[in-house]
């Protein structure tokens, strides 16, 4: 291979490599993927505190005189944690009655929400995150501002900061 061909080959390879690199930044975020209502949601693990099965659905203690999106409270090792109907807040339909899996998040305070299914813990390249705009919802109620694909399905990313500053939790 002559010098010119060699350089051209290297440039081609370099071009291919460069193209491949631009598709993935190498910067990833880890998400817990859960099923809530009929949707898949991604929760950045920065806000995740724990996931557990409730032994008994009666362990969620209902509270009187609270908004419908506050299902009650649970006792997590001596700490009372509010339980939110995330599916109601995000407009994803009814919270499943039989849901006994609980996800605890923490930003300004700890909050738990029941999920239908824990699906995966996945590192996603930030390049794979797409912005979402939902013109049907008010801006302040739109808390799934990003999404990514997972096994051919779309996962909505919960904007936890927006959730905590929303009218539901503020």
């Amino acid at each position, binding site marked *: 291979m002559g010098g010119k061909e060699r350089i051209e080959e290297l440039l081609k390879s370099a071009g291919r490599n460069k193209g491949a690199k631009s598709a993935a930044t190498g910067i990833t975020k880890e998400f817990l993927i859960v099923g809530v209502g009929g949707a898949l949601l991604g929760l950045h693990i920065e806000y995740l505190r724990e996931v557990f099965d409730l032994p008994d659905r009666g362990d969620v203690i209902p509270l009187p005189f*609270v908004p419908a999106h506050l299902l009650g*409270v649970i006792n997590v090792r*001596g700490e*009372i*944690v509010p339980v939110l109907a995330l599916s109601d807040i995000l407009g994803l339909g009814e919270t499943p009655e039989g849901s006994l899996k609980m996800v605890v998040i923490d930003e300004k*305070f700890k909050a738990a929400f029941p999920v239908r299914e824990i699906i995966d813990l996945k590192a996603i390249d930030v390049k794979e995150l797409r912005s979402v705009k939902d013109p049907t919802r008010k801006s302040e109620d739109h808390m799934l501002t990003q999404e990514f694909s997972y096994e051919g399905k779309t996962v909505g990313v919960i904007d936890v900061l927006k959730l905590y500053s929303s009218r539901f939790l503020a």
Partner: protein
Amino acid sequence: MDERGALLSIFTITAGCHTVGVDSEEIERVASDAGALSAGRTPGRSYRLEELLSGRSPKRAGGTPENAHLSALVLKSDGGRGGLVTFDGVMDVMKIPMSFIMPVPDFVRRVQKPLFVWGFHASAEGLITLVTFHYLAQEGAV
């Protein structure tokens, strides 16, 4: 509620599947015959505890205690008209250390209107839901 002392004296009532605790300081007296009590004296608005626990509006949770309930708490007036809380469960008095009380989070305190459940106590028999009628009185419902 006396937060100065290490112990809180609570009056516990079994109401449906709940065990409810009320700070003894809020109670003027307890009567085992709510019907006779309400016939002789009307201290203010009466509430059915089970209906309050089910989240029914305080202004709609009242009723005639003589029909279905056996016992009643007479609430201290605290500058208002006082009130009557009726229930049909077992009652007891116990003292619990303040440090063993799990308060509801600030978020719950903010959104619960009026504030009714203010904490929990894990006893050997199960979780006791600590309630206050003080804020019902402040709302003007008592």
